[in-house]
């Protein structure tokens, strides 16, 4: 029986969930150390900043008070499971077909009609009963896997002065270390935005969360099922409407 979520997906999902929560909240603590963002190679003068960042309160940061050394310890540590995890899930998705099946879009996925159909499918009484990802899911998940997560990883590497020793081109790719730092910040909030939507939608049906542990069942694989010789007696009222 094919699982709805592959073991690799589930393992990565929860390791990554812990990693990004810690990385995000320690990142806010680190942001408090210098609350200005710049474009370009250098930047230290608030007058040159494109954004003056608020001071993030203790309830939003790890640790719960300003401690740059400890926040960096956690950040640098959790960067390992995060970074290795992003590489791992990409390899796994390419190998097991998750990428091709669920994340690649065709031009029709980008039409307003596809977006409306996706929202209807996700909010109606049969939400979750459709197979595969709808257009909006493909675009959102594709943006997270294809853009935000790699951007987070690569911009994080570029900010590290040690990266200058092995990949000076990496900094140039971003147009400078301060640009990389700004994009690291923006991508973090992009992931936070996804996180909020993702949790709100998952909470609409607790089975979705459970399935991320158990794997769930893949209800009718992508090719249409062979015709059933005998209709199953309608023993269950209110059986799932999809078939």
């Amino acid at each position, binding site marked *: 029986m094919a699982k709805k979520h592959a073991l690799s997906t589930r393992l990565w999902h929860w390791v990554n969930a812990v990693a990004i929560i810690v990385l995000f909240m320690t990142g806010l603590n*680190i*942001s408090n*150390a*210098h609350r*200005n963002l*710049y474009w370009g*190679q*250098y*930047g*230290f*003068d608030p007058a040159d900043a494109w954004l003056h960042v608020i001071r993030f309160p203790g309830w939003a940061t790890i*640790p719960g008070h300003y401690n*740059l*050394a*400890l926040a*960096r*310890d*956690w950040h*640098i*540590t959790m*960067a*390992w499971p995060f970074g290795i995890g992003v590489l791992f899930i990409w390899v796994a998705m390419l190998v097991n077909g998750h990428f091709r099946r669920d994340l690649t879009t065709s031009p029709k996925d980008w039409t307003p009609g596809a977006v409306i159909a996706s929202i209807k499918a996700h909010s109606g009484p049969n939400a979750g009963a459709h197979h595969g990802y709808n257009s909006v899911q493909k675009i959102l998940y594709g943006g997270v896997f294809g853009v935000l997560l790699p951007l987070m990883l690569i911009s994080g590497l570029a*900010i*590290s*002065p*040690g*990266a*200058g*020793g*092995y*990949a*000076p081109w990496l*900094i*140039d790719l971003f147009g400078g*270390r*301060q640009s990389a*730092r700004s994009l690291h910040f923006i991508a973090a909030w992009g992931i936070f935005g996804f996180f909020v939507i993702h949790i709100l939608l998952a909470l609409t049906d607790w089975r979705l969360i459970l399935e991320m542990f158990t794997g769930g069942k893949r209800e009718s694989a992508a090719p249409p099922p062979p015709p059933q010789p005998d209709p199953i007696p309608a023993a269950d009222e209110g059986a799932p409407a999809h078939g």
Partner: protein
Amino acid sequence: MVDLPRRSLLAGIAALGASACTKINESEAAGSLFKAAEDGHRVLHRALAGKQGLAKEFTRDQRSPTFRGNGSVTVADPFYQDQLAKGFPDWKLEVRGLVEKPLALGLAEVKALPQRTQITRHDCVEGWSAIGEWQGVQLGALLDAAKVKESAKFIVFRCADTLYGRDYYESIDMVDAYHAQTIIAHSLNGEPLPEKNGAPLRMRIERQLGYKQAKYVKAIEAVTSFDQIGQGGGGFWEDVAGYQWYAGV
């Protein structure tokens, strides 16, 4: 009175939980996890860069208009202030510790040695960056001149400044000590170092963060271990605040 021990047990567990939360950050397990992560970054950087991978160098027109001073920006020591006013005629840079030929060089002698000029980016642990042109002597050349012994594993920089009543110091390993861009700089943007940037001599270790770039350097000391120096963290901020010794991340 069965309830009492149970209640106190629950209270004890609750207290344990609460203290575990506050103590987890300081626990030995967390400490060794952090150390492993830090070492991992260093090993990965070294593996990818090789020992001599160079940090990016910039052109003159890419320099920042000024170069921010941070941490110590002045030195209270009267001898230092007297020397600063006079242009450091009697300032000596010692090279000592595990060397066969200890040195004590005046500023003019340092400037007479082969020089390296590099326009590099300075990254503060806080997040900001500045770009400046540094000129000075390669640390490796100085260690060779002093005939550093095989037993030396780390180089410690002793500084004239104090913060919170403690002497500033820093340390690096021999890989960074012999890196081409590791220099003892006497000039910034073609001028003698200003006081805020570490006059008369400061370190440039271009693949690490700003707090490693010791200013107001008085002595360079070759050691086998920095366990007995300061609180054993290998540097002022490492001791005082628990900053990472490897500051390449």
